């Protein structure tokens, strides 16, 4: 690639410079500010001077502690039971104003697990809400990336047929993409309604009334799933088109050759289509992952992180803190953590895709 004909320092900077300069000014520079804020106590509104606080913001977000407790025993030494489960000492007595356990002060139970015998280990976190936001965001990414990418590929193959009127279907499948996510979220909020929602009525109609209405967004078990479903519905068409343009770049002569050799459909897909889509696959995976980590608008319109934090996400927490709670420094710290997370994920993705290339 590097030949004297492609080396061109001045033209290179002339062509890439304007866009690069804009990004430095309007993305990089503000981000550097945000990183700086995360080490201070900067507030949105405050007459107090900004002070350097080191890693305090990060400690408050990421602080964890482990506490193993034995169940309460009655006078005879038998384990006390409550609702069929062994009863443990109240965590509150350890985490609130207990001078013997300063390391647990202000922490809350995140989750707990049995640690041999009747003992139970409690994982305590300084900021349980943020921990839940991290878990939810990863759940969202892990579910959405393969599901959306796969469905999009399926749709692309479906739409890549030579059928009369196929363009109409492609246009329709892509339509949700061009509708604002805010508009879409408002519509789906009505559709998901627990009392008189369309979805409940359709499902109950399809099952002849056997289906019990669900408050999709108001139930901790279904809220995140409902948002995942809607998000895929909205975005899958976009990735379908990316796959489609990838499919178009595969030379028809390859398919002709395969037809002559009598290859099965699966063989055609496995040995011609899929290898031809490698670059596209990397693009689709990266774009979906980035978008999924930024999950915000749907949450903001539909659930605001509820019920009981079941739909908290990292970006929602960053905004909630920075604006809602006027804590620019805390919000910035979350942004930096998110940046580091996504950076690591994309490095891993890069490593994995590069590995395959070497084979």
């Amino acid at each position, binding site marked *: 690639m590097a030949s004297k004909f492609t080396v061109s320092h001045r033209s290179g900077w002339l062509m890439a410079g304007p866009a690069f300069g804009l990004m430095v000014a309007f993305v990089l520079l503000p981000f550097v500010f945000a990183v700086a804020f995360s080490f201070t106590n900067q507030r949105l509104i405050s007459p107090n001077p900004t002070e350097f606080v080191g890693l305090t913001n990060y400690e408050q977000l990421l602080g964890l502690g482990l506490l193993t407790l034995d169940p309460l025993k009655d006078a005879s030494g038998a384990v006390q039971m409550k609702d069929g489960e062994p009863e443990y000492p109240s965590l509150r007595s350890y985490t609130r104003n207990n001078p013997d356990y300063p390391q647990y002060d202000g922490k809350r139970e995140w989750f707990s697990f049995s640690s041999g015998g009747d003992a139970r280990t409690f994982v305590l976190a300084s900021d349980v809400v943020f921990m839940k936001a991290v878990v939810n965001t990863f759940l969202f990414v892990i579910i959405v990336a393969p599901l959306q990418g796969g469905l999009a590929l399926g749709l692309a193959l479906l739409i890549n047929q030579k059928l009369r009127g196929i363009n109409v279907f492609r246009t329709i499948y892509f339509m949700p993409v061009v509708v604002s996510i805010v508009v879409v979220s408002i519509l789906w909020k009505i559709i998901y309604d627990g009392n008189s929602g369309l979805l409940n009525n359709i499902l109950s109609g399809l099952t002849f009334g056997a289906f019990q209405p669900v408050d999709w967004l108001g139930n901790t078990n279904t809220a995140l799933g409902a948002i995942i479903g809607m998000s895929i519905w909205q975005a899958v068409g976009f990735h379908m088109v990316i796959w489609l343009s990838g499919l178009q770049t595969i030379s028809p002569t390859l398919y002709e050759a395969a037809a002559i050799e009598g290859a099965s459909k699966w063989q055609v897909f496995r040995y011609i289509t899929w290898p031809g889509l490698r670059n596209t696959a990397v693009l689709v995976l990266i774009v979906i992952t980035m978008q999924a980590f930024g999950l915000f608008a749907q949450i903001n319109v539909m659930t605001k992180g509820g*019920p009981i934090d079941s739909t908290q996400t990292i970006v929602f927490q960053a905004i909630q803190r920075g604006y809602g*709670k006027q804590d620019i420094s805390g919000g910035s710290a979350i942004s930096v953590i998110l940046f580091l997370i996504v950076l690591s994920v994309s490095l891993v993705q890069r490593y994995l895709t590069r590995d395959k290339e070497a084979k």
Partner: protein
Amino acid sequence: MTLHKTIAGAMLASTLFAGAALAQTELTMWYHGAGNETEMVLVNEMLAEFNASQSDWKVVITTFPQGAYNDSIVAGALAGTLPDIIDIDGPILPNWAWAGYLQPLAIDESLIKDYLPGPKGVWDGKLYGIGMWDAAVSLVTRQAYLDELKLRKPTLDEPWTGEEFQAALDAAKNSGKFEYALDLGMAWTGEWYPYAFSPFLQSFGGDMVDRTTYKTAEGALNGEAGMAFGNWWQGLFKGGYAQATQDGADRDSGFASGKYAFSWNGNWAALGALDAYDDVVFMPAPNFGTGSKIGAASWQLSISATSKHADGANAFINFALQPSNLARFSKGLGLIPATAAAAELTDNYKAGGPLAVFYDLSQRQGLLRPVTPGYPVAAKIFEKALADIANGADVEATLDAATDEIDADIEKNGGYGH
């Protein structure tokens, strides 16, 4: 070129004309009413009258939709572009005054002598904001329901006790006539939660922060009274008396269509209820131990610290506080006039009027939300805690966590100047 000259000439002419005709200095004003036609008609009427009433000042208004208002004005403050006059929601005013974005008002004391306590925005002993109206919440029902359920009609002097309220909810629920006994307005997320529900907590004897020092929420939010409130609150939903998630439509029309026996709603919705039934009763809040309490304070007018025309802005606010203006907004929007004199000018709030009860409620039960710059953050934390508890979260752990978060915020802000 000719076109340019023409335009330039026209512009010059118009400036000259404007300058010659009106030597008025422009005052800029931000207001939260965009999209609310009825309200904006009234505001614009008042502005036009003020601008015509004198020759020194001319108020030019910019309106914002309410849902975007607080974020907009915070951004304006950060960027240093605040106008002369800002209208601001009462409970967040201390935050703004403390941050140095506002200056104390200089208004005629006689105008606010007989004022309700709610509409006065005081911080650090100085008056920074003043409202033209107050708002009040009541427990709305029908006389027919009370009769049918065999319930005593509570009065201002003798409101329902917590037990009586519980008995009323049980009676309504057991009658089987209603979808839910109580409409709390859970659909109105945001400031409604702290505004409408923190008075319950205060009636139990707790609070969002400890008002003796304003330095901590420990013991106030998560003390015994706080826990009692939390358990009662959760019981409303666990017991099936109220719904934790509510459609906006049910909030708007559920009481009018007979879905609910009791509705916890504001005076601004009272006219709608009166339209629906001819036997509507507006009852005071139940007394859970330390007296009946409802939230006080609504939107208030204030002057930015950067205003170069504070004298003009004060002149405008003095104009706005005349009884006729207070009555104007009350008549148009159903709001509670800030003085008894103004109330007498309205059909609804004058003695014996159908909404007069709200004036009394506001006067006798109204309690300001904690007057501290920490309020906006505490309110967000309180809202989330109430929503979580309603959805079944552990009461003790949730209130403890909320307490810690409020305390951490107070500490991060160096005690908010208390």
